[in-house]
């Protein structure tokens, strides 16, 4: 029964991925194709870009990404806990609380260190 459901997901994924490709191929057949260097320049209708866009950027984004990874992993670990919640006892609940609190103190640490300030 479960394999049947995932079979649909597989077929769905295949068609959902092919569909935009096929549509783009179709528009490639019917659309005009008259490229020229001006049209293909970056930010065509605006002021010319000064320098390359692929430059070093601020570490701030990395900082947020790191905190995100920590908390997202927490969510991934908590989902099985939430599913099995009816079957586990007080001990598992205590452990989950400890787990969440540890990350919560991590968040407070990051907060106090100023990692959450957007400048």
């Amino acid at each position, binding site marked *: 029964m479960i394999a*049947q*459901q*995932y079979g*649909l*997901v*597989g*077929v*769905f*994924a295949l*068609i*959902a*991925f092919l*569909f*935009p*490709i096929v549509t*783009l191929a179709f*528009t*490639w057949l*019917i*659309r005009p*194709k*008259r*490229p020229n*260097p001006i049209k*293909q*320049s*970056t*930010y*065509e209708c*605006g002021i010319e*870009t000064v320098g*390359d*866009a*692929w430059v070093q*950027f601020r570490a701030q*984004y990395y900082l*947020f*990404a790191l*905190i*995100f990874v920590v*908390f*997202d992993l927490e*969510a991934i670990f*908590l*989902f099985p806990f*939430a*599913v*099995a*919640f009816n079957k586990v006892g*007080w001990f598992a*609940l205590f452990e989950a*609380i400890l787990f*969440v609190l540890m990350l*919560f103190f991590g*968040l407070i640490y990051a*907060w106090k260190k100023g990692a*959450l*300030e*957007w*400048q």
Partner: protein
Amino acid sequence: MDLRSIGEAFIAWLQGLGIPQGWVLLINWLLGTLIILGFALTLALVLIWLERKLAGRIQDRLGPNRVGPFGLLQPIADALKLLTKEDITPADADRITYNLAPIIAVFHILMMFAVIPFADRVVGANINVGVLYLMAFGALGTMAMLMAGWASRNKYALLGGFRVVAQLFSYEIPIAMVMMIPVLLVGSMNLNEIARGQGSLFGLGWFVWVMPAAFLLYLVAALAEGERAPFDLLEAESEIVAGYNIEYSAMKFAWFYLAFFLNTWILSAVAATLFLGGWQGPFVDRIPALGVVYFFGKTFFMFFLFAWIRATFPRLRIDQMMAFCWKVLVPMSLALLLGAAILVKLGQQLAWPFAVTGGLLFVMNVVVLLVTLSLLGRYTRTLHQQQNKRLFTPELPRL
């Protein structure tokens, strides 16, 4: 009247024709896929019309009214126009990533339609990890936008792409925590089971009544996840022109546009399923087909709410938005999750009826909400006082 029985009758009919079991399954999957995909693409056209018309009316305009009755054919005209437009790829762009991004954007949003339960067991794939599946494909959409922003090799697009990372990833934390609460209450990640678990107490079992603060939190985080005002920082026209999709034209732009509207609908559908009882409603156990009506009613109500907010509110500043997520929503969602876990466990151990547990959960939610609001209010007051001190006070002219 049961939609599910139509599907089962169809399978029985195919088997009666003497087709081997494997082919019957494959035909069934293909048919289900095509129905859901066709539905999703038609829905996108309807949603675009609906949102434009609603925004028009709210802002005292007419909205689309030229093509067809009430402008109903406007999205079709737009789609045809976009189909025949020239597609420009900037010479400097990273071609593979640039072309892959809109495809992934459409792919991720269509995949999410596969697990939404439209009525009891009327669902593409009734899988047992539904909530996790939705989160996984939701994160894939962020990837598509980052790819688009990076590959365009345009400074505005790159800034938009980075804002996507900052905003959508940040708001994914509270939304994941809040989506975990219905999972905790029901004990299953299957979306159909979660909708079924809200059937008790004649509609008072909906998790929006049990966990109102969690629902509000989901609403706010969903506004950010759906890139909608007041959180549409990543496409702020006045700051970064259009954000990650600035270099896209023709059909590739249309795919991003479609993904944006369907994303809002999916967020509404998830809100309806997790908090508003999904297909639950009066008489749904006797006439299962009514579930479709209830589900769409709730989903379009949520969509209307999102469109209303988008047409009404101004945009936030990016530092305000990030601070609001990490300093308000994340601690609040953790508090709600832990409170719900402790109360539900207590209720199980002491064998309380659901009404008692639900009532206590409600009280806990109200307390968390009030504490959060009072802390926010106090913070805002101190901020105002500081600003008032710094205000420039001109000298009065001497008479």
